[in-house]
């Protein structure tokens, strides 16, 4: 028996096929009306809007980068096509490709300029650049046709000549479908997972070894390429390029479509734009009220349907996946070798010497030397505010050191936190940092992205290389999940599982990065007894495989039971180090840290 969820999904699939067939058959339908070209044009323009909205969805919905210059990129794409075709006499198809390239380059330049800007400024900068771009083409003289715009663009035929309205229509529909598939393939690949990881938390993504700036640049480049293409197509259809295409008022329609359909959903942009096109068509007699009505719809959508149509459906009882039943013996299908490669037991992985970190007058870490060795569970304890977390942040380069050195595998550790992560240190933060809106499986897969040896183009075209890497990663991810007893929960949104499962999932995700050193900051907080047992056995397995697990804990019993070696920190200094037994007997620890005698008895 199939579940309602699957049944509904099949129904939706059938609806999509029907919709696509209708779109292709539309010219036949339009022929029966008095003005077929008019109707064809309305649908094509909606298609351009949908392509642009897909581009906006990639950078804003999935990437969390709010761009207010997508209309500007569209305009640039149109002008690139126009100038190359009309002024330089290029072939139209080649010019169309160039409009996409120009859009991408323009986007890359803008993001290079604004990488240091927080997202608040980013929106503003893009809006300002949009204005500059419009002003520039207005002042472009003969090349851009100034205020009047650039005229005389013809849709190129196949292979040459001028294309008929019907062929152009079919071409546009086909390109829209291709762009939808590009979006889907990208988002479902490692590229998309990293993009969403950055959207959810740039800090966590960095801890998994993702370079925030580089990846944002890629996201924006892809988004710009699609927007440029939309602009090229639009100018091809209209026959001209003009600065007003870049106007924010025209851009409103894309935001309405995106929010109505659902930000950060695959089908949202197309559904939303289709609805907006219908609304637009029904108010065509009152053009001066168009912005007013669209603006009101946008605000109304945000109030009544904050997730949009697709988003609301996905979050509902019918549209969200359940945990599935695990077949008996299924867990045996997944084998996992968690032995750390190229490491011998007892080898010094990380060596910190006289690490000092001062925040102004606060001496948070005041000259700590520590060694992390392979195959060891290394406990770090100390009172609140003793500098444990600061030490970890300093070692993983989230904080710049005031002085001292950190050596990783004998070499000086890189200054950039994501590079430290790539070199084998992964940390799990004190508060859960899961990518909540992403599925459990995708959370683990995000941790694996360093092993995915495919690029953006492999992902878009789903090349054999991509397929192979992807199926291998999925199998490994399932193996890891089964290790934590979480098999069957792959499709659930990470935000919907219990607190203890979240903590375990986070550890699993960190393990997926294949670290040599795994740092866990208070992992046992808030766990049930059972979950505590799962965590304990997981940590033991990892250490047995040669990994160094660094544990920062307040739960002394839990820590003393697991740790091979314990470092005690107070006021930014090491006051004791040794085996749990030795540390528990250490006079200084008993007096300075534990203080009262009742507590020391409990320990002993």
């Amino acid at each position, binding site marked *: 028996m199939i579940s309602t969820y699957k049944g509904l999904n099949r129904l939706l699939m059938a609806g999509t096929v029907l919709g696509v067939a209708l779109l292709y058959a539309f010219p036949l339908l339009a022929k029966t009306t008095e003005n077929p070209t008019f109707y064809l044009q309305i649908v094509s323009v909606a298609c351009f809007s949908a392509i642009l909205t897909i581009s906006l969805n990639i950078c804003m919905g999935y990437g969390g980068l709010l761009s207010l210059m997508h209309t500007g990129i569209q305009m640039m794409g149109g002008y690139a096509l126009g100038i190359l075709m009309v002024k330089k006499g290029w072939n139209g198809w080649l010019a169309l490709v160039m409009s996409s390239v120009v859009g991408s380059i323009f986007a890359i330049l803008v993001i290079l300029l604004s990488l240091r800007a927080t997202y608040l400024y980013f929106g503003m900068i893009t809006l300002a650049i949009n204005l500059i771009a419009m*002003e520039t083409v207005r002042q472009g003289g003969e090349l851009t046709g100034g205020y009047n715009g650039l005229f005389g663009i013809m849709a190129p035929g196949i292979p040459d000549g001028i294309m008929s309205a019907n062929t152009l229509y079919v071409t546009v529909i086909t390109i829209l479908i291709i762009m939808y598939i590009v979006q889907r393939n990208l988002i479902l690949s490692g590229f998309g997972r990293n993009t969403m990881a950055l959207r959810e938390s740039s800090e966590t993504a960095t801890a998994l070894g993702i370079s925030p700036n580089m990846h944002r640049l890629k996201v924006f480049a892809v988004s710009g390429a699609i927007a440029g293409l939309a602009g090229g197509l639009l100018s091809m259809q209209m026959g001209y390029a003009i600065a007003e295409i870049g106007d924010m*008022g025209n851009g409103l329609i894309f935001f309405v479509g995106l929010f109505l359909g659902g930000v950060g959903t695959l089908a949202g942009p197309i559904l939303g734009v289709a609805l907006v096109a219908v609304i637009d068509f029904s108010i065509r007699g009152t053009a001066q009220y*168009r912005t007013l009505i669209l*603006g009101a719809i946008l605000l109304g959508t945000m*109030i009544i349907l904050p997730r949009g149509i697709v988003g609301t459906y996905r979050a509902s009882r019918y549209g969200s996946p359940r945990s599935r039943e695990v077949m008996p013996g299924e867990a045996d299908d997944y084998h996992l070798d968690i032995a750390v490669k190229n490491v011998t037991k007892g080898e010094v992985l990380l060596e910190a010497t006289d690490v000092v970190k001062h925040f102004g007058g606060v001496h948070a870490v005041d000259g700590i030397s520590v060694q992390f060795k392979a195959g060891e569970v290394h406990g770090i304890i100390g009172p609140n505010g003793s500098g444990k977390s600061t030490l970890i942040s300093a070692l993983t380069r989230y904080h710049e050191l005031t002085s001292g050195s950190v050596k990783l595998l004998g070499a000086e550790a890189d200054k950039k936190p994501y590079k430290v992560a790539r070199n084998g240190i992964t940390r799990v933060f004190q508060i859960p940092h899961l990518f909540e809106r992403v599925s459990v499986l995708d959370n683990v897969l995000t941790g694996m992205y360093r092993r995915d040896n495919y690029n953006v183009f492999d992902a878009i075209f789903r090349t054999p290389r991509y397929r192979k890497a992807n199926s291998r990663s999925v199998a490994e991810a399932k193996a890891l999940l089964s290790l934590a007893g979480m098999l069957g929960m792959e499709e659930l949104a990470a935000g919907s599982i219990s607190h203890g499962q979240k903590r375990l999932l986070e550890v699993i995700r960190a393990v997926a990065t294949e670290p040599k050193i795994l740092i866990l900051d208070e992992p046992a907080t808030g766990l049930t007894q059972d979950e505590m047992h799962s965590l304990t056995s997981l940590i033991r397995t990892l250490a047995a495989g040669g990994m160094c697990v660094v544990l920062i804990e307040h739960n002394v019993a839990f820590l003393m039971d697991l740790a091979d070696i314990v470092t005690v920190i107070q006021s930014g200094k090491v006051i004791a180090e040794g085996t749990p037994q030795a540390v528990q007997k250490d006079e200084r620890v008993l007096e300075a840290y534990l203080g009262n005698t009742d507590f020391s008895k409990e320990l002993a």
Partner: protein
Amino acid sequence: MSLQIWIDGIFAGSVFAIIALSMTIVYQPTRIMNFAQGEGFVLGAALGYQFIGVWHWPLYKAVIGLIIAAIIMGFIMERMIMLPVQLSGSKFAWIIATLAAALIFQSLFNIKWVNVTFSYFDFIDKNISIGDAKLSIQKLIVIIFMFIVYAANEFFLKKTLWGRSIRAIAHNGDTSTILGIPTKPVIKMGFIVGTVVIAAVGFLAAPVIIVAPAAGLFYTIQGFTAGIIGGVGSAKGAVVGGLTIGILDSVVRSWLGGTWGLFSTFFVLALILILKPNGFFGKRVEGR
């Protein structure tokens, strides 16, 4: 370089500074940079044109009418923006909502005033001569008004209970509510005061500069630019940033021609964002 260019620059800079100040007034309790703020500027200019230029109302009547209209606009704007922001939960809600509000107001202005630019006459048609340069009383009023708004805002924030509440809300809205601060009225008041201030400068400056019904977004961006150069959320930054771009625009304009003024402003903006991302007086912005 002639003195006249500097005087014009300081005047334009004062206009931008007041726009930036009014944005700061909204930003302080809400942490929202309001894209619809410039529409208040257009409202001031439009009503000045309608009341004085078309209906020939006496000045006092026009001023009262303007203040009432600005209060209403601020009230509506607060609902249009804060309701989606509170209900939507999206990180971008405030940008999209303020942008939508801006476009809605803009289209209303476009429907009411077709093909009009809001220039009427100077209230006080007199000039002061400084050497061979001239400063009209009208422009002087705007410059003085800028300093008054700045001083009043500083006094209000630092010396009054209400001002301390605003700073507390900016820090943490929920905690402030628990402590008994009337968070929602304070936010409403921020929008209303901000709109009245920007409408006032629109009213005062429109006789001297050209304001079209659709110009709101342009003035918003100028205010933003000023705010970012000076540092978002800082009143001192708003004044310094506003004067910087006003003078720069005026100097470059006289030197290279109209469009280059605009380009130079954004060039400085880009430079600031690269070298000093939080502006001259700003703190690191986390935003909503």
